[in-house]
């Protein structure tokens, strides 16, 4: 199968700087198709920037990125994205259903309305993330956890082959965090997942592999992570969490 031939994401020697010192330098990363990869690292370590380059929202200064063998901008239909801080204001007059449906807007200048199959796909995505009973609700009436599920539903409605999430659990409580990860584990049965988190300990119970990013990249199998690696990465003592090696 061609989709297993090329990796889901291939980052080659990528460097990037906003106006200032480099945020990313010589980053190499491969995400295999079907993999569940956790990307961790300190704040301002370049995690979100790397995601935006993989998504095609930013262009790298050097190096190249491909998604299923194509440049990110040509792979838009393969990409599903759940942002950390939604770019919209919470009180925008829009329902949950409209939000999820917006993933079905065709690329380009095609006018018209949503087709019945678009509505069906949106409905299925909402059912999968258990927000279907919120379909007619206003976005602003949702809790943090509900909003997060709606954003996952929106990403799924694009029918992506890879789901990219930036700190999906940063703004919700611990119990919901577990719920979201259980949901992601289910989704991983049929799609590649790339997830950014600052919480190595928590995600290591779910992901296949952890990549640690602090301007440049160090990759590890989850079992290899010990205090020394984390200390190198964060350049400070980090309280180790026991369940890291439980699995």
């Amino acid at each position, binding site marked *: 199968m061609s989709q297993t031939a090329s990796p889901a994401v291939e980052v080659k020697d990528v460097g990037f700087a906003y106006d200032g010192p480099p945020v990313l330098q010589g980053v190499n990363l491969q995400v295999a198709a079907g993999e569940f990869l956790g990307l961790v690292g300190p704040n301002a370590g370049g995690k979100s920037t790397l995601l935006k380059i993989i*998504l*095609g*929202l930013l262009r790298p200064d050097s190096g190249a990125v491909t998604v299923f063998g194509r440049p990110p901008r040509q792979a*838009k*239909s393969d*990409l599903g*994205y759940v*942002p950390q801080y*939604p*770019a*919209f*204001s919470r009180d*925008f*007059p*829009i*329902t949950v259903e*409209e*939000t999820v449906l*917006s*993933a079905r*807007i*065709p*690329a*380009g*200048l095609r*006018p*018209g*309305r*949503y087709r019945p199959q678009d509505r069906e796909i949106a409905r299925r995505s909402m059912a999968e993330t258990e927000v279907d009973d919120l379909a007619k609700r*206003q976005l602003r009436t949702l809790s943090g956890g509900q909003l997060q599920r709606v954003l996952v539903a*929106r990403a799924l409605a*694009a029918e992506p082959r890879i789901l990219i999430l930036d700190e999906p659990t940063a703004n919700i409580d611990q119990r919901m965090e577990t719920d979201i990860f259980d949901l992601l584990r289910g989704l991983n049965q049929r799609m590649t997942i790339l997830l950014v988190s600052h919480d190595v300990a928590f995600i290591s119970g779910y992901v296949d592999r952890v990549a640690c990013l602090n301007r440049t990249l160090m990759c590890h199998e989850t079992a290899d992570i010990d205090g020394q690696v984390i200390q190198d990465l964060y350049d400070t003592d980090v309280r180790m969490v026991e369940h890291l090696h439980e699995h």
Partner: protein
Amino acid sequence: MTDFLAALAEYGFLQNALAAGLLASLGCGVVGSYVVVKRIGYLAGGISHTVLGGMGIAFFLGLNPMGGALITALLAALLIGWVSLRWKEGEDTLIGALWAVGMAVGVLFISQTPGYNVNLMSYLFGNILMVTRDHVWLMGGLDVALIVTVVLFYRQFLAVCFDEEFARLRGVPVTFFYLLLLCMVAVTVVLLIQVVGLILVIALLTLPAAIARQYVHTLGRMMVLATLLGMLFTGLGLWLAYDFDLPAGAVIILLAGAAYLLSTLARGLRGKALA
């Protein structure tokens, strides 16, 4: 009220004024809803005030002021839009500069125009009682064009207003639709400016939509309610202006402003009661 209705039946100018007010409400209700949810009221204000410069220059050169207004409005919309996409930090300053410079240029050229001098006040507050039948048709045509555009691309405009980043990721040409939206604001402003004045245009673009937003929860419904509210304000304003012999534009703005204030206060009180 009966006096006003009798006069309305009798005088063509009053019929034109009412038709112009209702049609203006339609354009402003639709475009204004975008202006409010996208929070580009200041940007729309910048475009409409810049227009005075173009009108003044055209007037000075003996050309049709409407043509000058349209060119200036579109240029201002594209310039502001381009800057706000490329250089977000500079947007605020640029709008302020265009706003002031546009008005200064307008005032300067109008003052240097030989012969009959136009009344600047009529550009600011309009003169709805002087609207011609032709202009009413023109406004109707504009409304149709605006509504057709919005119906065709409702999804794309919604996506661009709601979440630019996600829209871009889905392949929606965000820059194109954003600039198209600003051009729609520009065209709305120009066609209404001679009728209702540039200050009233801004009031009608923002206040009815801002009130509507407090009561309905989708963009489409917001457009409908904003249009109806605009029609209520212009109709009521015309009637009051006629009965008490007051400037219509100012009365309409004060009605819209008072309604917005009352609605916001009522919501605040209700919110407190619930808390």
